[in-house]
């Protein structure tokens, strides 16, 4: 754990006790079993907003606390431990785009609402089954003073419930070019926008979006026309680092739950944790957890410091946390044996969330490639 300020420690402790009292895994299970289409519990979201977590990355002048991304990560880590489903991460992702590229009017319009949790926001980027932020075909055509959007976005996190969508669209150039991408602020209830809520394996709120002649004014352009890729990439880095924190929390909990099981499950007349074959696998997981924590905290800290190597540290963190999530979620099922295969046990819930989170904002190989490119290999 990074060296924290008093304020950060307090917030983390508050998050720890809130998730264990108000949002344990049983709450997630209940939400899933209720057939909730949004993929999160509205009452819990209201409490999250009241605790101020929605304003952690928003400056004080816009109604937030301006504590930054490491602090957001601490909260998401605790939420990850109990699989707390809430649009906090999606909203923070879209908020990041506004913080990076929003003009005064846009910030004044949206940030106070986002800080208070009165608006949910989402980032609409991918159009294919794999994360590919430069692959952009959703067309935004200049019509009069504004733009008309046509095309689709797949698997948008909390896209169904979002009041505000930050949409990456093509205003010039070809499908896989970085130039010619522009970001737009689109209301969730825009006319011509069709949102299909999906039932995903992790029971979170993902949606496919179809844009049929969705008209937005010129003031909806976020940042510069045709030059939106850098803003998008920086925004995605904030989303990736935040997601990495959630995944680290989940993996830590998976490991601790599994370790408890190794200490209590008796076979051959002794607890199975005395078997060296299992001890060494536990030691390997512990080692990977420690190494990965360093990467995740370094990425979040780099964002707070606006350091030069944010992209590389974020890709390092997301690649490492993906590998960790993969290993630990699989070991959780395997080491629990038969009970780990049942729906009644939490292993499956963690496994499903792990895979969904791994695929979100870039797989391990996506981030290895990106790291290699950034370092010039």
């Amino acid at each position: 754990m990074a060296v924290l300020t008093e304020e950060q420690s307090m917030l983390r402790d508050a998050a720890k006790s809130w998730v264990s009292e108000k949002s344990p895994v049983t709450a997630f299970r209940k939400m899933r079993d209720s057939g909730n289409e949004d993929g999160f519990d509205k009452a819990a979201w209201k409490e999250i907003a009241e605790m101020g977590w929605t304003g952690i990355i928003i400056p004080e002048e816009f109604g937030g606390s301006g504590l930054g991304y490491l602090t957001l990560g601490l909260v998401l880590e605790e939420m990850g431990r109990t699989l707390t489903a809430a649009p906090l991460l999606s909203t923070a992702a879209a908020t990041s785009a506004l913080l990076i590229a929003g003009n005064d009017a846009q910030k004044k319009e949206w940030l106070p609402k986002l800080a208070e949790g009165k608006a949910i926001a989402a980032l609409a980027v991918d159009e294919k089954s794999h994360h590919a932020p430069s692959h952009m075909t959703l067309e935004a055509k200049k019509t009069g003073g504004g733009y008309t959007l046509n095309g689709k976005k797949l698997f948008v996190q909390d896209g169904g419930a979002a009041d505000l969508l930050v949409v990456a669209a093509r205003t010039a150039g070809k499908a896989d070019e970085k130039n010619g991408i522009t970001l737009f602020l689109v209301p969730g209830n825009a006319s011509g926008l069709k949102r299909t809520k999906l039932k995903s394996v992790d029971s979170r709120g993902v949606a496919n979006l179809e844009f049929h002649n969705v008209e937005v004014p010129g003031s909806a352009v976020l940042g510069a026309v045709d030059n939106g890729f850098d803003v998008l990439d920086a925004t995605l880095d904030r989303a990736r680092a935040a997601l990495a924190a959630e995944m680290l929390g989940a993996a830590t909990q998976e490991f601790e739950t599994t370790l408890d099981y190794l200490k209590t499950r008796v076979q051959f007349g002794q607890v199975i944790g005395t078997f060296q074959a299992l001890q060494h696998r536990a030691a390997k997981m512990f080692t990977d957890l420690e190494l990965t924590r360093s990467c995740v905290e370094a990425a979040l800290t780099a964002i707070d410091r606006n350091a030069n190597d944010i992209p590389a540290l974020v890709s390092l963190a997301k690649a490492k946390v993906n590998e960790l999530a993969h290993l630990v979620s699989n070991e959780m099922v395997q080491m629990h044996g038969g009970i780990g295969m049942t729906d009644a046990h939490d292993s499956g819930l963690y496994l499903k969330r792990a895979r969904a989170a791994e695929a979100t904002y870039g797989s391990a190989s996506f981030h290895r490639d990106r790291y290699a490119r950034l370092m010039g290999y």
Partner: protein
Amino acid sequence: MSAAEKLDPELESFRAEARAWLAENFPPSLKDKDVSMTAMAGITLSGDAKLWQERMGAKGWGTPTYPKQYGGGGLTNAQARVLQQEMARIGAKNPIGGMGVMMFGPTLLEYGNEEQKARHVPGIVTGTVRWCQGYSEPNAGSDLAALRTQAVDKGDHYLVNGQKIWTSGAQFADWCFCLVRTDNSKKHEGISFLLIDMKSPGVEVRPIKLISGNSPFCETFFTDVKVPKENLMGPLNGGWTIGKRLLQFERAGLGSGGGSAGRGGAAQGIDEIAKKYVGTDEKGRIAEHQMSARAFALTIARAQAEAKSNAGPNQTTSIMKNAGSKLQQERAELLLEIMGSQGLGWEGEGFTREEIESTRAWLGGKAVTIYGGTAEIQNNIIAKRILGLLDHQ
């Protein structure tokens, strides 16, 4: 370095002092040259290297945090870090090294009596006395406490008989810190910590040739070696605790060694070498290795920051030896593959010096997951001490 440290006026005045002393005393010809290992390998230093070692030894700055009364630097940890920064700034390497400094010295300061400290610390501080480690035996490797080298009480001395193995640098060592059996009826509680003069009659050293072609380790035989009683360190039959404490210093040192591998070491970056031999990183394996190396370097930094704020080491350090040694081996294997047939030379024509060194280092590196507690023993330690898993019954 934290902002607070930057602004501390006392530290800044020490920085000025260190900078001035280094400017006057560091021979520029030694920029980026590490002479500490040369000294350990038994090569007598001469010229600037000798001068640099003498000056640092006299100043006590080769062992900056050792107490002044025994010739150490007497610096605080913060001052030692400043000294390290100032040395790094001008490419000055610490000329005082070896097992005495890294492992035995800190243990001696903790467990030695006044007479022992006064006698043995100064030689470590000046780098003039070389120490070797008498721990492992042919039948006591990972199960170290099964050791059988006997020290029998003969009134005014102990009579030592037995065999040690993997004694690094024993052929060049002046003294040996040794675990010996003083009670056959108990396992761990029958072990004592004894300091043996390697020039004593009955000590015989035979270097062991390894797969790398080098002989960094020896077999050391003790036949009726008389060791004065004053050379017992700590209580009789209380050597196991001291021996384990020393291993902590050893593993911490090995971990930071992995750290230099993690940061790419003094050598050229593996990506630069890859460009020369194979062009690109087509399978992403170099990136994967470099990412693991960076994760390790970040973990060292995090553990240090946390240890500083909590005033003590934390459980993160338990992973360092395995993580660091694995990285070092992975890097060597990757380099060998990158170099293709150029990485398969043993000696002579057709290969560059770097290629041969790299191949020998690949072979020599097989030791790092074996010495100082094998990778498996490290995993046992993590499982039992950190994770609280029990012994198999």
